[in-house]
């Protein structure tokens, strides 16, 4: 079987990027352990959905996935294989027929996967059964944040790009009952941050009592939130210290920022709270305008 410019061997699946979508990257579990070199952790933002996608195609969780943000790419397959879509529902279809989320799907040569309206969530994950032939840097193929993309050039999808996957034959179809958090207001569990006690009781009460809304600044580095009222903080900074995915910093304007996987490893704003890992998955699926209620937990 002869493709355009490439030979398709047995057990190979090529994905050709016809359209990139808004922001589609290849992600895996990231680069935990290299933060002392100033390297962000990276990796899939909604790890539960990414893991589920890999499970549906019989891959282990360290395998790469496509992280598709709000507006999906158009992909054409050459060869055959199994894929799965989890997380945000972006009305995916193959050759014009809507496909199911959270289920193993079969793809074959000339199939075209398209996305349309975003129905719920923010980020969709696509796993492909087999081994991705993709460059990695520091044991991860996760796309580095915008400014350093040259280190992981093939992990930010580009039009015309070909992704090659060594498939492993057809495995049993798997299905899962997965649903994203659907409440109008997401309860987000947090722990006290390092500077929690630097905030006055009144400010802390305000932080936990009022609702927060996702602003239009939500990306892989961080999510800026707007409250009904800004927190009345005295502008102050700390000597730069560690940020983790899930750290909530309060800017000097009194607005919270939730740091995400691609955040810098250190920062200087007061850290009021830290999200639990499972809450980070919830925030990763939220878009502008969605509301959050912070709930304080204790580290046992």
């Amino acid at each position: 079987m002869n493709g355009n410019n490439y030979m398709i061997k047995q057990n190979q699946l090529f994905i050709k990027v016809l359209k990139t979508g808004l922001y589609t990257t290849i992600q895996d579990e990231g680069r935990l352990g290299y933060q002392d070199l100033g390297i962000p952790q990276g990796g899939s933002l909604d790890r539960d959905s990414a893991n589920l996608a890999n499970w549906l195609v019989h891959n282990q969780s360290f395998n790469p996935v496509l992280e598709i943000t709000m507006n999906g790419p158009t992909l054409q397959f050459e060869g055959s294989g199994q894929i799965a879509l989890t997380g945000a529902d972006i009305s995916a279809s193959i050759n014009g027929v809507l496909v199911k989320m959270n289920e193993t799907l079969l793809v074959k040569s000339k199939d075209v996967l398209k996305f349309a309206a975003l129905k719920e969530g923010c980020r969709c994950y696509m796993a492909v059964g087999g081994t991705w032939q993709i460059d990695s840097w520091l044991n991860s193929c996760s796309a580095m944040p915008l400014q350093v993309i040259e280190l992981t050039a093939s992990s930010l999808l580009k039009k015309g790009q070909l992704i090659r996957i060594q498939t492993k034959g057809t495995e049993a179809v798997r299905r899962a009952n997965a649903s994203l958090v659907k409440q109008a207001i997401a309860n987000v569990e947090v722990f006290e941050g390092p500077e929690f006690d630097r905030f006055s009781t009144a400010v802390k009460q305000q932080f936990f009592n009022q609702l927060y809304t996702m602003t239009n600044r939500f990306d892989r580095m961080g999510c800026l939130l707007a409250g009904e009222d800004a927190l009345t903080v005295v502008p102050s900074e700390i000597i730069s210290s560690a940020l983790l995915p899930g750290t909530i910093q309060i800017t000097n304007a009194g607005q919270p920022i939730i740091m995400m996987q691609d955040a810098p490893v250190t920062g200087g704003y007061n850290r009021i709270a830290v999200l639990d890992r499972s809450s980070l998955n919830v925030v990763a699926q939220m878009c502008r305008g969605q509301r959050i209620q912070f709930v304080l937990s204790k580290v046992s």
Partner: protein
Amino acid sequence: MLIRPYGKEAILIEFDQLISPKIHQEVLKLYTFFKNQNIEGVRSLIPAYCSLTIVFDSSKVTIPQLKKQIESGKSELANLNRQRRIRIPLCYAPDFALDMEEVMQQTGLSASEIIALHTAQEYRVYMMGFVPGFAYLGKLDTALYCSRKKMPRQRVPSGAVAIAAFQTAVYPLSTPGGWQIIGNSPLPFLKGSIPPFSLFSIGDKVFFEAIDIEQYHQIKQLIKEDSFEWEQLYD
């Protein structure tokens, strides 16, 4: 020293909250101890000016166990690897010193005085951060203190050497940035896939050596040909 949980799977160790070589040496010692110990369940270390954060897997190690390790790390003396001293060639030619005018205005010094002060002292890598390979070097001579630019640049050229407040740094990659640029180094500060990936690591001693534009291009060429002798940078 203060130890507290930082979420469910990290602890933050805070030393006296000061920027000083003495405090930083404490950070470095504990960081080096944990780096060498390879304790099961310790997943990442984030050393900074006066703190060390340890990210761990709570199914493999507990906070009390980590506290015990911290105690033994503290009591072990002089387990620090010899700190490296790195010489960084730096060209202060006007083509590269994009903000020299502004720095001259803010400090009231001439360009040659600024260069003399900037090359006169040894700096310490206090922290890696901002972007991969970016080293926060301090402390700058107080005569050179100036504020950040009012509007950050969209794209700082890679290799740019800049100052802001008490710090100086090299931009290893072309990124947005708000520091005042006074020169450029021909070295690549982030080495793609070759360990140790970053030219700098925390605790290194660094000093700058002024080179002219001819030497700048010579070094660039040698690096391109892969015949640059890296050892000459280290004392």
